[in-house]
């Protein structure tokens, strides 16, 4: 791997880590106790530090190290996780992103850091130190721990402290004869204290001592709970109490930091040596030989029929016994087992997953596009040559090509949720700025679509969500006065619908005032005062370019901001935007996009001298015009299909390309297409069947051509236009509106 591709991998990793850190921080805002998320933040900083170190990016290491250290203290409960601290951590995340970008972009790692960036980092760290300094001091922490224990004596030795900690938790219960055996418990504590730091000590008496006349001054009732910090391993600590073995029940629980050390060690164990958890834990020092022996004894006593081959059962049993006898935290056994499992799966995943340059994938898909075209050409040639035997082979090839196509396109499919989760941050930040309370709900995040489409739709989506948050949803006060819950709600929903992905962005905000839009549009000269517009048409006006200036936007509750840009972006992806809004209730924007930009299944039709491709996923049915199948002309622009009135377009009329040689009276066909809720008919001359269609974009010259989404090359070498059903629907509707107005005028 060259340094450059290693750097790319580093960047990708950092992006992923920062994303997970962001998600974790968002989760922490809701629940500051969430240990999982705390760990995620810690891990993100920790891993970036580690990898950054490998590349020698010292400033990244320095910065992330400080954040990591703070997070460690938060995890151990020394620093409370306050909202301001979370906010600062958000900034730290952003700063890390900037640092990484800047440094990796620089030619050499030694290049001095941009002073401004360095200053920003220092300021952030200073603030971290400040909010960290306000933390609970160890003394008061131990004080409260002691109080808690005093309130419920004898609970401490069975319960593990819930806080994540870097402390060894040691519980000692001395037996009655301890003093008489000439042993002074204090001496052990002093000795342990000399090995490190006794951070917490809770001392209590067995409740028996406090019973009426139950106290014998020469018997020992002492119980200690110790929180110990030191650079020692478990056997060393066990060694301290070795002398008291007969007089004392000892439990030693490793700190979580040791736990993570164990996990690292566990992960580093070669696969062929991952077998037996007891040996494994012993090897990494999580367990003492004595503890293991005891567990094994118990195990042997319980059952003797566990064979050598049944390592799975055996592993679990020893783990259980070890936890039961308090030698080890359940989490370590669980996590050790999980780490083993994860290590195994990871090894498998490494074989399963390959990071591929998106460009290579794009190239592959282009080639498959050519292959599709070529195989169509072969089909045509074979047909022309009349070689019957070839047909079967051609069928096979075409089947394979379409499979290859589907699989290749699948490679680029990603769940949309990964990209949507970034909006949580957008909403959160905007809420902060505006003093609003908004909940962002994302559903259908697992819906997959082409990565290139995802990337291109992020901008318009961001725009729409900003709009919803900024202008759609009211301030809590206003909401309350309108009888709505103070917390607003933005809902993003994604789902698949006939070869398309539908993304809905709904808010329960103020909604749009159709009358004001109308007034503005008239002022801008977009509509004439005597134009009759339906409510939908009026609402659609905000997608018009003329309504997009900032000033008007505010007047129109802001919805006009760049809505024309949104529409242009979406339409560039062969998609559509629809908007529905009720004043005072909210707004819903629906975006419909094709799943992929490259290759589709098409339905080839002939009209006039030309051939056209309709996306197959949008074809509902084909009916012969004029046949006695209930198809009746219904006025000039409607057709009555089995009682359903559909608008229709005759393609030859639309494209003005009627074939003069065509005999009049020859039967036409009606292709019923569907788009979202709309259905309409396309009248064509001939139905030519299905084909795989490689979409070639039309050049700039044809940009303004309505109803055409692109072109494709047929097997014959001819060019067919790919129809844009959504636009055709709009055209049909326009005709109907014109006709309606004409009717009204007459």
């Amino acid at each position: 791997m060259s340094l450059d591709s290693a750097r790319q991998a580093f960047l990708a990793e950092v992006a992923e880590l920062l994303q997970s850190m962001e998600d974790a921080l968002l989760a922490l805002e809701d629940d500051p106790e969430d240990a999982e998320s705390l760990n995620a933040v810690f891990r993100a900083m920790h891993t970036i530090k580690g990898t950054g170190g490998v590349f020698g990016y010292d400033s990244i290491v320095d910065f992330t190290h400080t954040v990591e250290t703070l997070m460690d203290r938060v995890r151990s409960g020394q620093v409370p996780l306050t909202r301001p601290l979370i906010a600062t951590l958000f900034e730290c995340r952003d700063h890390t992103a900037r640092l990484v970008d800047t440094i990796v972009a620089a030619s050499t790692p030694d290049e001095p850091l941009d002073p401004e960036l360095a200053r920003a980092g220092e300021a952030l760290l200073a603030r971290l130190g400040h909010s960290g300094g306000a933390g609970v001091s160890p003394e008061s922490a131990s004080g409260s721990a002691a109080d808690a224990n005093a309130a419920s004596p004898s609970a401490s030795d069975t319960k593990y402290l819930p806080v994540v900690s870097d402390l060894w938790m040691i519980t000692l219960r001395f037996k009655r004869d301890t003093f008489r055996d000439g042993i002074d418990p204090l001496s052990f504590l002093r000795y342990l204290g000399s090995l490190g730091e006794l951070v917490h000590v809770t001392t209590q008496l067995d409740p028996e001592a406090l019973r009426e006349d139950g106290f014998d001054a020469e018997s020992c009732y002492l119980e200690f709970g110790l929180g110990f910090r030191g650079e020692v391993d478990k056997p060393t600590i066990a060694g301290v109490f070795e002398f008291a073995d007969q007089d004392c029940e000892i439990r030693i629980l490793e700190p979580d930091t040791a736990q993570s050390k164990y996990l690292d060690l566990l992960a580093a164990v070669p696969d062929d040596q991952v077998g037996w958890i007891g040996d494994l834990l012993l090897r990494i020092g999580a367990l003492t030989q004595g503890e293991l022996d005891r567990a094994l004894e118990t195990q042997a006593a319980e059952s003797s029929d566990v064979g050598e081959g049944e390592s799975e059962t055996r592993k679990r049993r020893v783990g259980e016994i070890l936890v039961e006898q308090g030698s080890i935290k359940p989490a370590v056994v669980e996590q050790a087992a999980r780490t083993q499992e994860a290590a195994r799966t990871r090894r498998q995943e490494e074989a399963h997953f390959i990071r591929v340059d998106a460009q290579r994938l794009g190239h592959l898909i282009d080639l498959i596009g050519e292959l599709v075209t070529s195989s169509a050409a072969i089909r045509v040639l074979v047909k022309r040559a009349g070689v019957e035997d070839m047909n079967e082979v051609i069928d096979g090839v075409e089947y394979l090509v379409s499979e290859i196509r589907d699989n290749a396109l699948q490679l680029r499919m990603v769940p949309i949720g990964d990209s949507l989760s970034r909006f949580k941050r957008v909403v959160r930040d905007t809420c902060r700025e505006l003093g609003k309370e908004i909940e962002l709900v994302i559903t259908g995040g697992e819906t997959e679509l082409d990565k290139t489409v995802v990337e291109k739709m992020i901008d318009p989506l961001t725009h729409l969500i900003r709009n919803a948050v900024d202008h759609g949803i009211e301030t809590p006060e206003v909401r309350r006065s309108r009888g709505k819950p103070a917390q607003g709600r933005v809902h993003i929903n994604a789902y698949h619908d006939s070869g398309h992905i539908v993304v809905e962005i709904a808010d329960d905000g103020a909604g749009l005032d159709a009358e004001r839009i109308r007034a503005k549009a008239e002022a801008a000269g977009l509509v004439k005062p005597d134009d009759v517009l339906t409510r939908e048409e009026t609402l659609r006006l905000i997608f018009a370019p003329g309504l997009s200036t900032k000033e008007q936007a505010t007047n129109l509750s802001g919805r006009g901001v760049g809505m024309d840009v949104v529409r242009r972006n979406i339409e560039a992806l062969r998609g559509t935007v629809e908007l529905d809004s009720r004043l005072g209730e909210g707004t819903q924007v629906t975006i419909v996009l094709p799943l992929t930009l490259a290759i589709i299944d098409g339905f080839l039709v002939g009209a006039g001298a030309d051939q056209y491709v309709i996306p197959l996923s949008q074809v509902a049915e084909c009916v012969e015009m004029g046949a006695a199948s209930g198809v009746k002309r219904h006025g000039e622009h409607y057709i009555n299909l089995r009682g359903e009135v559909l608008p229709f377009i005759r393609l030859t009329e639309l494209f003005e390309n009627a074939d003069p040689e065509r005999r009049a009276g020859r039967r036409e066909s009606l292709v019923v297409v569907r788009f979202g809720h709309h259905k309409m008919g396309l009248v064509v001359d001939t139905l030519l069947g299905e084909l795989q269609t490689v979409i070639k974009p039309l050049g700039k010259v044809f940009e303004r051509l309505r109803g055409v989404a692109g072109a494709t090359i047929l097997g014959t070498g001819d060019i067919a236009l790919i129809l844009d059903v959504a636009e055709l629907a709009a055209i049909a509707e326009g005709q109907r509106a014109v006709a309606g107005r004409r009717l009204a005028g007459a």
Partner: protein
Amino acid sequence: MNARSERPTDTEPLVLDGDLTIYTVAETATRLRPYLAERRLYLDLSAVSELDGAGLQLLLWLRETLHARGGALRLVAHSPVVAEVLGLLQLSGRFDLDSAGPAAGEAA
């Protein structure tokens, strides 16, 4: 050895002196038992020259028993030996060592 007064100002504390260890605890316990019903017991430990686990346990027992019966124990004075042990076990707070006698500084 009068510790009956309710007000701290004119209280005469109970004085324990010499070794407070496994060798003396039985005897000391017998001495302490009559005071277990006190609302407030003042203890002067400034003359304690040795304190081991058994002695510490005795003090703890005294405090807890008084507490359980609604009373309170106050140390009015202590020796460095006492401060060292209470400091080690982080019991200074429980025995309110800071407000008691000399050598309070060592407690933390």
